[in-house]
């Protein structure tokens, strides 16, 4: 308190008035420093001083015998020019007072900060709790925001990224086996028509995945990830150029053009030791010699669909790009300046409709779809990320409420201090600014710690993020993010600071002091604090419901019957260079011995190969027709997920045979054409009896009838969430391709087989690279990565939210109990049973929680619709989740209020009443 008498405030004038009337001793008096005031008060002061002088002088002359009027006139004459003196003095005082006000403002801020620092240091537990709460909330919010910002808000790292569009075929009208019917790939003729006719797209490039094997002198064969694209991808569409060498020229992209390749900076460093001489050298890619024409700069971030290592030309024109029904291309284009996506889409839909008329077989029920490239890339990630950002915002809000409640509680215990200060003349504005300084200081210390946490958190998030999340390399904690954190901190500080400060400023000094420092002013702030706790519980409940729904949905996903047994299976991709393995004989000559030798390894139970693994995503489809059934309308043949597999595959993958037989080594190119179908296809096309029937795959004009020899279970070929669709398996020996995935079932740890298998492959052919080596279980885990990411984060946020809300509730209940000690003492003295006291407190706490839960349930019903797309097998209003979350909250609330409730029963009535 010692420092308070130094404070200058508007109230000081009142102090002077008091002392004027009370002070009796002449000349030895308590003097007050000049109070502040407006210009009007300066004039009054100067007037008063001059008048005093003249009147004292006149009084003396009167005492010497002059008449009153003579005395006054003489006094005025002696004084001189009153107006000019007054004017000069006023000017000086005004100047001086302005300077003082300025330095006082600086002084006030300094004093406020010093005082706040002392307050914070002298309540270490309170401050630590508040700062930790703020730091956690700001850290989490900033970390999530940095991911949202990097993935969704930052523009793509290319010139005028808003002009980039992705072009797809729209197959939503068709019955096909596709992962996303709105985003189907293009055939070359459809692409070429789009390129030539859509005027609002300035340049467009079609591309297809390219996974060549790089072989060089003495080094291990490497599987590369890249694309082949039609002319224009780099310079025209993306607006990028190689750092060394040259870009692709139109003459590189013609049928039978030169084999040229551009390398990424990463590959150039990794495989060529950053040798600048690599340009114009020849490298072997899948045994084909390519000339390196350029190396991309290190800061080139190819969009995810372009791969990371090497790029070459597609070399198609109208003569060699395949038929209109052969869809294997995607396309990315750049719109003309000023063109809108809507315009492009409209032009494309017109063209699509025309092509459908011109090519009624291949293009029936199809059209083009056009999306902005950025939207297209992040479409998968966006719902989850926005939901997470919203959730972390809730956590931040709850944290603010908690700190506000802490401050309110402390404000109540400090009310006598504040009352003394108000009584001493501290202005309301000064009190508010003092308290706001304190809360801002807390917020900024919390914010600083939070930014540190955000650095770590962002790192963890990026590492945790599901593998497919696009644009993660753009995520960084930089000035932009720091600005966001600063903004959040400022908002946070004012959110939790303003209400307690205003509350405190309304302190009635008389009332507070009369209560003798027994922390009065409680009733009003208690109502406010109850409201805050109700809101907190409500917010936490909404998060808990969201998290609960996601957890239940995730459980459902994990319980989904995949149709095969992933445990103990190692998978990998084996690609043969088509140049050397150019016929069935050579391909079988490689895979046959490989299967045999891997099968002979210890712990290996079975080995098989297939050309696409379950869950691995879409990999092309085929059409078929059943022998004897009415021929389907041309172009609308039913679609099927068609795979080739070796005889051991079904056993190795644990894919159960329901009827008939599996493939054997005698199902070779010479034997009868056979096929195995899945349950769905048998049910839908063979009335449940497929064995012995025949069907044809593709080319309806020249059917090759294949006999169904077996029926296998459905598997989740398009991911865990998708329904099973038609599937067929051909014996690999009757349709050999250049690459296959191996599935090796072992009794031991699948990872132990990696090296022995590598050795066998390189002994068979050192020029062959393995890629995608991973246990099948990992593939299953990966396919749920996004769900796991969202569920665990939202679950974490919800738990933190509940914890904060419960801590808030505990604080309010125990504070109220301590405020009502006297009442409890009286009740006990009057013979109230302990159980009754406990119930009193519990009932009161539960009333708050019930209000919060009610509010939260209403909010949840309104908000869970936002996560509908993330849920699997759970309705957004799942009563089980709602009920159990409410129950959880009630349970936690009871636990939190039990401690203060028990304390209330321990009140010693004599002690309490004596202390009055």
């Amino acid at each position: 308190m010692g420092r308070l008498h130094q404070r200058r405030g508007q109230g000081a004038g009142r102090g002077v008035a008091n002392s004027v009337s009370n002070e009796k001793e002449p000349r030895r008096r308590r003097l007050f420093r000049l109070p502040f005031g407006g210009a009007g008060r300066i004039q009054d002061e100067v007037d008063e001083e001059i008048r005093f002088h003249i009147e004292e002088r006149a009084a003396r002359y009167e005492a010497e015998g002059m008449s009153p009027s003579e005395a006054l006139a003489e006094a005025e004459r002696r004084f001189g020019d009153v107006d000019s003196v007054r004017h000069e003095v006023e000017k000086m005082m005004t100047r001086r007072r302005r300077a003082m006000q300025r330095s006082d403002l600086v002084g006030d801020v300094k004093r406020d900060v010093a005082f706040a620092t002392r307050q914070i240091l002298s309540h270490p537990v309170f401050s630590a709790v508040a700062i930790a709460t703020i730091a956690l909330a700001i850290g989490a919010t900033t970390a999530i925001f940095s991911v949202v910002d990097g993935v969704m808000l930052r523009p793509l790292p290319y010139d005028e990224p808003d002009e980039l569009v992705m072009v797809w075929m729209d197959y939503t009208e068709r019955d096909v086996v596709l992962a996303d019917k709105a985003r189907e790939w293009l055939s070359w003729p459809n692409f070429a028509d789009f390129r030539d006719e859509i005027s609002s797209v300035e340049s467009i490039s079609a591309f297809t995945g390219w996974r060549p094997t790089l072989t060089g002198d003495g080094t291990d064969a490497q599987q590369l990830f890249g694309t082949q694209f039609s002319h224009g991808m780099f310079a025209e569409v993306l607006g990028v150029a190689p750092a060394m060498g040259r870009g692709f020229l139109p003459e590189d992209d013609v049928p039978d053009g030169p084999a040229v390749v551009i390398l990424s900076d990463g590959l150039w460093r990794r495989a060529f030791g950053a040798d600048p001489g690599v340009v114009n050298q020849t490298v072997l890619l899948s045994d084909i010699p390519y000339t390196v024409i350029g190396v991309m700069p290190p800061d080139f971030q190819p969009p995810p669909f372009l791969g990371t290592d090497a790029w070459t030309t597609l070399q198609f024109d109208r003569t060699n790009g395949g038929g209109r029904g052969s869809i294997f291309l995607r396309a990315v284009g750049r719109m003309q300046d000023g063109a809108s996506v809507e315009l492009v889409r409209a032009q494309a839909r017109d063209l699509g409709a025309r092509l459908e008329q011109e090519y009624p077989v291949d293009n029936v029920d199809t059209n083009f779809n056009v999306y902005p490239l950025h939207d297209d890339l992040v479409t998968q990630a966006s719902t989850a990320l926005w939901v997470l950002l919203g959730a972390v915002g809730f956590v931040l809000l709850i944290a603010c409420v908690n700190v506000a409640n802490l401050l309110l509680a402390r404000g109540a215990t400090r009310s006598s201090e504040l009352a003394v200060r108000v009584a001493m003349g501290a202005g309301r504005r000064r009190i508010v600014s003092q308290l706001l300084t304190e809360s801002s200081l807390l917020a900024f210390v919390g914010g600083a710690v939070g930014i540190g946490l955000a650095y770590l958190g962002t790192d963890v998030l990026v590492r945790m993020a599901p593998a497919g999340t696009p644009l993660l390399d753009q995520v960084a904690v930089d000035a932009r993010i720091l600005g966001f954190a600063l903004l959040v901190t400022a908002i946070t500080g004012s959110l939790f600071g303003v209400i307690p400060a205003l509350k405190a400023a309304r302190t009635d000094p008389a009332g507070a002091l009369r209560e003798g420092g027994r922390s009065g002013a409680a009733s009003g702030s208690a109502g406010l604090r109850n409201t805050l706790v109700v809101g907190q519980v409500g917010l936490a409940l909404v998060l808990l419901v969201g998290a609960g729904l996601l957890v239940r949905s995730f459980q459902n996903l994990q319980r989904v019957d995949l149709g095969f047994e992933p445990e103990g299976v190692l998978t990998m991709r084996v690609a043969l260079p088509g140049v050397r393995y150019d016929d069935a004989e050579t391909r079988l000559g490689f895979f046959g011995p490989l299967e045999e030798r891997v099968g002979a390894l210890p712990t290996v139970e079975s080995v098989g190969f297939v050309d696409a693994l379950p869950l691995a995503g879409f990999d092309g489809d085929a059409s078929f027709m059943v022998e004897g059934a009415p021929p389907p309308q041309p172009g609308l043949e039913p679609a099927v997920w068609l795979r080739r597999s070796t005889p051991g595959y079904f056993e190795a993958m644990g894919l159960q045979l329901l009827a008939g037989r599996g493939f054997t080594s005698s199902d070779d190119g010479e034997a009868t054409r056979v096929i195995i179908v899945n349950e769905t296809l048998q049910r839908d096309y063979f009335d449940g009896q497929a064995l012995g029937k025949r069907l044809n795959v593709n080319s309806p004009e020249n059917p090759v009838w294949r006999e169904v020899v077996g029926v296998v279970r459905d598997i989740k070929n398009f991911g865990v969430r998708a329904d099973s669709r038609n599937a067929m398996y051909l014996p690999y020996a009757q349709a050999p391709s250049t690459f296959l995935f191996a599935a090796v079932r072992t009794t031991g740890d699948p990872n132990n087989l990696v090296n022995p298998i590598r050795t066998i492959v390189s002994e068979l052919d050192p020029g062959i690279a393995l890629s995608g080596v991973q246990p099948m279980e990992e593939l299953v885990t990966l396919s749920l990565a996004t769900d796991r990411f969202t569920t665990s984060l939202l679950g974490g946020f919800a738990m933190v939210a509940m914890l904060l809300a419960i801590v808030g509730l505990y604080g309010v209940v125990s504070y109220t109990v301590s405020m009502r000690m006297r009442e409890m003492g009286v009740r006990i003295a009057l013979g109230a049973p302990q159980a009754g006291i406990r119930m009193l407190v519990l009932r009161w706490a539960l009333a708050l929680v019930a209000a919060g839960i009610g509010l939260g349930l209403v909010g949840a019903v309104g908000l869970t619709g936002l996560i509908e797309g993330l849920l699997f097998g759970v309705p957004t209003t799942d009563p089980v989740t709602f009920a159990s979350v409410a129950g959880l909250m009630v349970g936690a609330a009871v636990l939190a209020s039990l401690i203060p409730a028990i304390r209330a029963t321990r009140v010693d009535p004599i002690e309490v009443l004596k202390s009055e």
Partner: protein
Amino acid sequence: MAQNPNLVRGTLDLLILKSLTWEPLHGYAVSEWIEKVTDGSLLMEEGTLYPALHRLAEKGLVEAEWGLSENNRRAKYYSLTHAGKGYLEREAASWAAYTNAVAKALAVESPIP
């Protein structure tokens, strides 16, 4: 702002500071003190006292505070600050040295002593 032409610049400040040596005074009391000790010979217009007082306050040599006069009227009292005391001592010393030197010079009777 007519002043006694004999009043050397800075002298009034010095007199004001001197008047406050013993206790805080209001402006009128300061004028009375000066009148008394100088036989009314220096301060012709009392009003000039106030700009001087406020100038001294601005320099931090005096401090102004409201208080009560002998007959219980509100009056502004001026007191010497620590800086004001030091200033007065230094100025008084140099004033004495100055007047001494001038007096010595004026007392000389032969052309070259």
